[in-house]
């Protein structure tokens, strides 16, 4: 303390100041979440819950949700805020998955076919949504939320009229339209999770899933460092600055939307293969909220997000979810976990929205 108290010409900081700054950098909400997780884990241990299994679950849920959360980065970086219109991309991913089943594909073929179809579909819808988004500058968050809702509702009609013939998907008693939940057991369920997976004690490590997620993280990180990625960041953090550097602001906002929706489309396929089911109709409705909450817990603001924020946020969010469920079931009552999850995720979104930088470019 004494040494640090000496005034230095560049504005000396005491240890206390630096500690305060470090806390601020890490973010008070993150510290609270981390504390909450710690309490949960301690309770879980004291209740003698199967910890190995719990950690295995955390890893799986981390991998299966990761790409959906990654989808938040391009939209935040390009200045349109967290992508609340994520159900759009999710829908594209579901369409691609059902198509692979209709074509009677199985295993890795089915999975990669679905991914291959989902990316262009997501990109096209992302482009169209990006064009639309440029007309509602400054209100992306609200408009995006309702856009997502509208797409889900619109697709409800699609699912009832789509002319698929596969008996696995249409209602068993005949008629037209798809089921609410489609089982992937004989298709591509757990193809990634099972790939090269191994056990440490009672903990299963879903190697393939984590590798796939890691690959997307690396690709996105590279993209963010490319010329286009930097341009996107410039547009997002100060559109006037970007203009003065000769960039077309609208163009890069569209690129952000394209990448984001394409990631959303891939993300839901990864999610579905881990989950083992495809859920249609209203299931994608709240997909965006958990992804938004995750990236914000990770320390992203409404204008700045990195791959690290996604990794930290997804891990924390899913860990709380996985651990709180059995703990709450034992300690209090059934279904409290779901309530806690909703409080945490919406609380985090609310916190992020009330911060100053919420004012996106409204000129």
């Amino acid at each position, binding site marked *: 303390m004494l040494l640090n108290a000496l005034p230095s010409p560049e504005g000396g900081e005491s240890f206390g100041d630096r500690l305060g700054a470090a806390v601020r950098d890490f973010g008070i909400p993150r510290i609270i979440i981390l504390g909450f997780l710690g309490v949960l884990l301690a309770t879980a241990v004291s209740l003698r819950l199967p910890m190995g299994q719990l950690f295995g679950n955390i890893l799986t849920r981390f991998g299966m949700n990761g790409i959906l959360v990654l989808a938040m980065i391009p939209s935040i970086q390009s200045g349109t805020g967290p992508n609340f219109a994520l159900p759009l991309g999710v829908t594209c991913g579901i369409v691609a998955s059902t198509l692979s089943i209709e074509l009677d594909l199985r295993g890795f073929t089915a999975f990669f076919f679905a991914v291959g179809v989902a990316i262009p579909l997501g990109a096209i819808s992302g482009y169209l949504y990006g064009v639309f988004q440029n007309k509602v500058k400054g209100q992306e968050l609200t408009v995006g939320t309702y856009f997502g809702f509208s797409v889900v509702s619109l697709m409800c009609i699609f699912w009832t009229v789509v002319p698929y013939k596969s008996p696995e998907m249409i209602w068993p008693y005949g008629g037209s339209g798809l089921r609410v939940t489609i089982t992937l057991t004989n298709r591509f369920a757990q193809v990634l999770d099972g790939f090269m997976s191994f056990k440490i004690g009672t903990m299963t490590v879903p190697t393939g899933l984590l590798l796939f997620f890691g690959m997307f993280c690396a690709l996105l990180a590279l993209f963010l460092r490319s010329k286009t*990625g930097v341009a996107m960041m410039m547009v997002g953090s100060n559109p006037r600055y970007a203009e003065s550097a000769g960039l077309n602001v609208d163009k890069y906002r569209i690129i952000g939307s394209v990448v984001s929706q394409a990631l959303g489309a891939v993300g839901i396929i990864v999610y579905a293969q881990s989950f083992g089911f495809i859920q249609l109709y209203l299931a994608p409705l709240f997909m965006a909220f958990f992804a938004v909450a995750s990236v914000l817990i990770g320390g992203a603001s409404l204008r700045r997000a990195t791959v690290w924020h996604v990794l930290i946020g997804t891990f924390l969010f899913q860990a709380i979810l996985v651990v709180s469920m059995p703990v709450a079931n034992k300690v209090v009552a059934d279904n409290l976990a779901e309530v806690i999850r909703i409080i945490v995720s919406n609380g985090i979104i609310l916190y992020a929205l009330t911060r100053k930088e919420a004012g996106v470019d409204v000129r």
Partner: protein
Amino acid sequence: MRGIAKEYFGNRVLKGVNLRVGPGEILSIVGENGAGKSTLMNILFGMPVIHNTGGFEGEILFDGAPISIRSPQQAVELGIGMVHQEFMLLPGFSITENIKLNRELTRPNLLSRLCGPKLEHLDMPAMRSDSRASLDRMGMSIDEMLPVAGLPVGHMQFVEIARELDKKKTRLLVLDEPTAVLTESEAQVLLNAMRSLAAQGISLIFITHRLDEVVQVSDGITVLRDGEQVADLSPRETSVGHLAELMVGRKLEAVGCDGCAPSPRTDQVLLRLEHLEVDMPGEMVKDLSLEVFQGEILGLGGLAGHGKVGVANGVMGMYPARGIMAIEGTPLPLGHTLEALRSGLAFVSEDRRGVGLLLEESIEMNVAAPAMQSQEKFLRKVGPRGFQFSIMDRRAMRRHAERFIEELDIRCTGPEQIVRRLSGGNQQKVCIAKALTLEPRILFVSEPTRGIDVGAKKIVLDLLVRLNREHGVTVVVTSSELAELRSICDRIAIVCEGRLEGILPPDASDRDFGLLMAGEKSHRGRDAEGPSHLSGSCGQGSGQGSKEESPCS
């Protein structure tokens, strides 16, 4: 008002000013931007900003009795009216409604008897006749029921004044640049109205930049400069030229490099602008033609709001612009930023935090990003052969930023520091480093010293001179501080009302600068016999912009 002095955060903006207005007198206050005129009027009007920043010294006497004005409401009670520079009118309302705004005459009705006076009916006929009377006092014949939207600006100004007159108590009326938005003929009507008001016993304080109006209409003239009362004159003992001289004054500090080598200026035209129009709100450029010579430092001066800032913004495509631009004779499209950057233009914006910087990003990113986007710098190839793509080269960015940090003496903890945490002067250096990274042939710098402290000012100005001398960069500096321009520029172009008013050498007299800034030359339409050395060092073509243009056309 006696011995008025005011400090804003240790910065003395008024240094003992005395004003005296008799009944039915018109007192004019003239001075450059920042001379303290607005502060003085805010004190008189009891604006909260004054009291929130520690009040003021001195005393105000009204009718011989000392008073303390704590709020605008109190000022109105006393009979002090103020007509602001910006119109405060509701466009959808009629003239009458605007004049009577918040002072409506009402009559009781059934509801109001039950629920209180807030629900009373408007007494339109009474309001109309009151408004009519106020308008008539100024000799205005327009229909008092017309909506304000769509009225000519001149008429809006009259509505504003009529509102003040309608307050029966008004005995002292402050007019803050009432003629700034008016054409010359409209201004003339207003001046006549002012005189007739004065004849009716109302005292007026008239703030303006147009010196001919001052001489024409005032009973007394006070000149402010840097918060000091430079002179108290009567219009008989002065002239427009004399006023201009007093207004500008010599306030040259030793900035720039007086002793060092002359600029590498040549006679070759590097950038030519013809009939430039820029649609920048608040800084409209209307028809400006200008030539920039290779290797010079050209200053763009003029009063705030007259368009000098719009020039660089238009050239760089930050705001919609029309006209002809050519670099070394090659035409260049206007309104195309990327094209401008690639042709060797670079711009340091006057809006440092709004346009100039990515506040949440590091110094190295701020410095390198524009060059990366427009010139493919700081990129390196990665990936296997055939699938190569470029990503940013952080190491090169770091090295580059470190070089500039040392060269420009940017005080920071390192190239990765977030620019929001830097001081204003250091942020400005980052902006300049950013522009220099583009290796420009012409550097536009707008308001380089705004909001930075004195020491940093000198460093920034020295830097511009050094760039010019050592690297041969042609620099176009836009600044509201004439003294600054005079210390570093080879030529100074004065912009007035969106047009080039004239070009002067830095050592021209205060009087000439003042005249050009107040737009006296084009007002009088005497461009032919302007001061003899007007085109002294600027060669041909300098006066073109201002020829046969008067603001009332």
